[in-house]
């Protein structure tokens, strides 16, 4: 098996996007964390945010839009903005179609407790299936509809409802170096194009798949610059104004909102807060492993190492144990997109990032999640019949 | 209102769009009157030196620029050939006289002598010769896009605002009073370029 070079401090290997190692072998993400801890005047940032929010307060139907999945980051962001800044937000959710039961339950509770207006949008499933397959084939990443929808749809609402301020949660400097903590990360079209949309816009996608109209892709389309400018949109990350700390934030929302974590495929049970909102997460992380030789456990343990909560030795053991196991949710995914497992693996092979190699030995299957029976298996009207037929014949 | 001198330079539209993107209200100046009516002026330029000087002279635009810059103190940004034409002379295609506004000559880059590829095409780091309002908000050694075979060689270094290295020092920008000019193309230098143009719009020399 290929031995990947990893950061001398954390678990991130050389196949991670935008990774760079310095003379000490320390990666740029670890270095950014030092910058975050040492060089930023967080009190000044806090004052900046207060001034910014105050300048929008009371002037529109809502003071700001908070894009919301119901995961740990957006729940904390919403809680913090209401508690500390007393905003009246419009909470906007782009529902990718794979929200898990515990998350749905959390959402209802959170939104009631905080007393907010809530808007949720779920795009056409028949379009989504096509998009998943096409983006998997092209980029080895089936989540295009989710990446683009999550970041484009709230912007569309900002334009339609004339609410210029959007506040997102975690800055990308926490896990990549597309932006550093030394620059203010504006969640704008440049950022969208830089790494969110996999290099494919809705206009690009239009010519890549058959049988869809341009308007079918509207939920995934970034609003035109002139519209954003007319409304005067500002779109920022809360994490640019307070030092992001996942674990303490999770503890806070558990305590204050009764937010409840869940098991996730491919990660140790200690991380019951991470990406609990999507039941295709296990497949996503599995593809990442097939392509890049690491998964979510490497990412999570790295954050713990950077925050002084875990030693490298133990992290390595966890990574070895959890990353790269075949998730039971893969069966459902393959049904959705109509691929066989061999076809799926072949696509993953085409996207392997060197020096990782596709010849890695399989690591065995992961454990099925407790809520799997509740996940909706609908492929389409026609396929559901064929699924039933398949079930009886078996 | 900002005027871009329109004498057929091919980067005119890129310059206009870039300026509009950073919020400028742009007018294309085709007559001396247009130039004199503007609060600030941009002189773009790509192509052959002699032809450019001849055309600006014959149309009276050069004289209007002179009045706007030296008598009325209007800020002027020259870009690429728009920098070079201000020189005393150029050796491009035989020796030709320039505007003679800045002391120095335009010469062929001697990259070949240093074993480098010529022309000088691509992104290069710019070293600031002094602190300048025009480079505000950029890192200490920002990169800009260059595409040229000839460069301005000043008689004395004090007019330099920034230099770059290509088989020897190359003038990247000059600045004197209300006159600023770049050899690189801010309208093609992505975020750095837009920032510089934004700085030019706010510049109060």
């Amino acid at each position, binding site marked *: 098996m290929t031995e990947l070079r990893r950061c001398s401090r954390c678990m991130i290997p050389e196949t991670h996007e935008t990774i760079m190692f310095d003379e000490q072998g320390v990666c740029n993400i670890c270095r950014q964390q030092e910058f975050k801890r040492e060089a930023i005047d967080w009190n000044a940032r806090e004052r900046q945010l207060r001034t910014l929010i105050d300048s929008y307060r009371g002037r529109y139907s809502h003071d700001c839009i908070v894009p919301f999945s119901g995961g740990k980051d957006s729940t904390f962001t919403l809680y913090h903005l209401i508690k500390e800044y007393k905003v009246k937000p419009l909470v906007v959710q782009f529902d990718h179609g794979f929200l898990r039961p515990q998350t749905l339950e959390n959402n209802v509770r959170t939104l009631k407790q905080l007393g907010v207006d809530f808007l949720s949008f779920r795009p056409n499933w028949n379009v989504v299936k096509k998009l998943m397959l096409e983006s998997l084939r092209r980029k080895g990443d089936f989540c295009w509809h989710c990446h683009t929808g999550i970041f484009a749809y709230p912007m569309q609402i900002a334009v339609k409802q004339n609410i210029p301020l959007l506040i997102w949660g975690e800055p990308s400097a926490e896990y990549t*170096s597309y932006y550093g903590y030394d620059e203010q990360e504006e969640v704008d079209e440049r*950022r969208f194009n830089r790494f969110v949309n996999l290099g494919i816009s809705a206009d690009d996608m239009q010519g890549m798949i058959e049988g869809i109209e341009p308007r079918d892709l509207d939920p995934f389309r970034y609003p035109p610059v002139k519209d954003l400018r007319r409304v005067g949109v500002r779109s920022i990350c809360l994490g640019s104004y307070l030092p992001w700390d996942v674990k303490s934030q999770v503890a806070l929302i558990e305590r204050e909102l009764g937010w409840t974590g869940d098991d996730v495929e491919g990660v140790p049970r200690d991380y019951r807060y991470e990406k609990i909102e999507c039941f295709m997460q296990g497949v996503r992380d599995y593809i990442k492993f097939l392509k890049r030789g690491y998964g979510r456990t490497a990412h999570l343990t790295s954050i713990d190492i950077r925050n002084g909560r875990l030693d490298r030795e133990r992290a390595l053991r966890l990574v070895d144990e959890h990353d790269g196991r075949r998730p039971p949710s893969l069966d459902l995914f393959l049904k959705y997109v109509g691929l066989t497992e061999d076809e799926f693996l072949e696509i993953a092979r085409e996207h392997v990032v060197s020096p990782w190699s596709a010849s890695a030995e399989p690591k065995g299957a992961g454990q099925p999640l407790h809520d799997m029976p509740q996940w909706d298996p609908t492929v389409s009207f026609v396929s559901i019949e064929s699924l039933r037929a398949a079930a009886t014949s078996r | 209102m900002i005027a871009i001198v329109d004498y057929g330079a091919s980067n005119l539209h890129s310059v206009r*769009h870039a300026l509009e993107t950073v919020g400028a209200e742009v007018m294309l100046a085709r007559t001396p009157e247009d130039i004199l009516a503007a609060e600030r002026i941009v002189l773009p330029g790509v192509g052959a030196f002699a032809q450019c000087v001849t055309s600006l002279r014959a149309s009276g635009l050069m004289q209007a620029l002179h009045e706007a810059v030296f008598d009325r103190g209007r800020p002027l940004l020259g870009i690429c050939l728009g920098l070079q034409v201000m020189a005393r002379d150029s050796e491009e295609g035989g020796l030709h006289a320039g505007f003679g506004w800045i002391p120095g000559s335009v010469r062929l880059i001697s990259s070949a002598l240093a074993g480098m590829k010529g022309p000088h095409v691509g992104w290069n780091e710019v070293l600031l010769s002094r602190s300048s309002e025009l480079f505000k908000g950029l890192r200490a050694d920002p990169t800009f896009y260059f595409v040229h075979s000839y460069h301005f060689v000043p008689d004395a270094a004090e007019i330099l605002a920034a230099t770059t290295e290509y088989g020897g020092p190359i003038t990247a920008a000059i600045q004197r009073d209300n006159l600023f000019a770049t050899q690189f193309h801010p309208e093609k230098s992505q975020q750095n370029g837009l920032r510089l143009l934004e700085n030019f719009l706010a510049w109060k020399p």
Partner: protein
Amino acid sequence: MLKIRIIPKLLLQRSRNVKGVRFEQMRDTGHPVTNARIYDAQGADELIFLDIDASVEGRSTLCDIVSKAASEVFMPFCVGGGVRTVDDFHRLLQAGADKVAVNSAAIEYPSLLSEAAKLFGVQCVVASVDFRWEEGGPRVYTHGGQVATGISVLDHVRRCVEAGAGEILLTSIDRDGTMTGYDVDVTRRVSSAVSVPVIASGGAGTLQHMVDVVREASASAVAVGSLFHFTDQSPIKARAFMRVAGIDVRREAA
């Protein structure tokens, strides 16, 4: 120091971007203007637009596309496809091209390069050279790889530079779209035969390929198609990789 450039290469056909294998089996790769916006955000150093229709109608569409891209994206463009006259040069430069690539016409109309160089400067004249290996060595092909000229690549690039080309865009048809690596050997020979920068093109399949052709063949720039279109690599990821490998690339993201 002058930076090594990472250049996405966009092939235009009927107003869409396409990419194939060895100039055939074209597959849609998106809308040219949104592609340009994306590559701009991803910190590409320059873009190459080549119109592979290269018809008369194609040329005016090309101008429109370049002009639209140039009004939204502020980065250098090298544009080509069916360029036959200095008028074509003029129109493309006016539309926002910074450099114009000449392919078939460099052989059909030998004076074009020198006339264009005189009018617009050598820095905006790019000789685009497509080649295949034949017995006896690499040979120039024109008309989108359809016409074998029998001319040696080295003779041809030397003539182009003498005539006034300020840069060579060197594309291996054999490697194009195969993602098996650049033709390092021919790129090295061309690069040492001429005094102007050489853009290596055709074959990039991994980020390491980009490093190899810079290091082993002294390419001044690397053109990339399939690797950016059909994998999740991007200029910004390539840049990080090349920097780690010790290549002098731009530091700013965009």
